[in-house]
């Protein structure tokens, strides 16, 4: 599964939101996710990928796409 799809799947497991999730959606203003919701999503992604994202790094995550970019920065490059 691509990172984008994975992030959307994990988000759905951690938040109370049935509608569409788009990359440009603002986590709080569009999807109603609070800081614990972001933390839970990140924790689940950490488990999924076996990585650790420092709590201090979470502050900059405003949109769905920010999560995807942050993850992609941290994951090993898979193809050239």
């Amino acid at each position: 599964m691509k990172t984008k799809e994975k992030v959307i799947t994990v988000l759905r497991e951690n938040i109370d939101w049935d509608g569409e999730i788009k990359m440009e959606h603002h986590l709080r203003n569009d999807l109603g996710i609070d800081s614990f919701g972001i933390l839970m999503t990140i924790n689940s992604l950490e488990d999924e990928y076996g990585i650790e994202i420092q709590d201090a790094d979470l502050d900059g995550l405003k949109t769905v796409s920010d999560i995807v970019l942050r993850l992609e920065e941290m994951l090993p490059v898979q193809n050239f």
Partner: protein
Amino acid sequence: MKYKDFYDRFKIDYEVVENAGFNPYYPILESGLDDPVIIDGKKFIDLASNNYLGLANDPRVKEAGRNAIQKYGMSLCATPVASGYSELYQRVREKLTIFLGLESSILYPSCYQANNGLFNVLLGKEDIAIIDRSSHSSLIEGIRGSGCKIRPFLHNDMDYLEKILKKAGKYRQAFVITESVFSTEGDIAPFHEIVDLCDNYGAVPVVDDSHGIGVIGKHGKGILDHAQIEDYNGIYTASLGKALANSGGIISGKRCIIDYLKYYSSHLVYSTSLIPAALAGVEKVLEIIQKEFDEISSKFWRFKNQITNTLTNTGYEITNSSTAITSIRSGSPLQTLMTAKTFYREGILSTPFIYPSVQFNEGRIRLIAGANLSEKTIDKVSEIFTNLAQ
């Protein structure tokens, strides 16, 4: 200018209050918790306070407070570790411990302080706090202050909790933290299951029973009574300012933990002791609960059921509450304040919750009818809600 820049940062966003034309926060009460209460010279039905048993203004409780003032004065003007620890404090501590069926207890000036003071003593960065995502701010701030790893779990979701517990082995100690009764919804945590999971994975359960003590359980002893848990191995906290009708916060559990807190919890050691009147008030309330719980609880349950039924029949959306709380799903912050305003105009004092007390863009209006209210008052409440719906 430096000062100006600093003070300019602290601007309150009043937009929603201005749009609603109503600020429900910090109402100025001109009476005690009577039926009715007085605000701005007008009579209101109190469905806002947490005076579940209706004992805050009970003559017997007030008399106990007065007697304590006669004997000890208003305050011992010292922290418990210094000279703020009285025979009354010691006795109330022991009575509460027996009431709860635990080994030992200690009393803080408030439960907010207790929850804040607990975690930074017991948890460090080697530990993990697994916490229900809907837990009270005092628990969240408490664990944040300890520097431990924080992992929230979906509200009351035991599969989610177990998934985290399975991976928590790398930490020195795992703690599972929850409220018993969730104060904005009125639902109760599956605490027996939580304790079983903790036993299986070697985690320590911590429960904040602020809205459970004196309210739930066959004998009104709170969550441990309700979930029929004996030999509880975890930590218990509760406010003495709700059903127990006074003020203060309790932490109970194993004697070694309580003895440790007595010397190492700075929120206790460096803060002036609970005042004698409140201690004596709690002592009297415990006595009343032990004698009269069945009668008192049947009253607040009747009130709760009547209010819930009226609201449901008149089209309000109500949460699934299994305690004495009735909570209305009231929509956006603006809709929430508008509804609370309508109630207020009709003489009903309620507690509206908007973000961050509830999730973003949601709202709740909490109604608690204490056992001090009369049947007539509750009939009036039903009449008001019915008329508003027409």
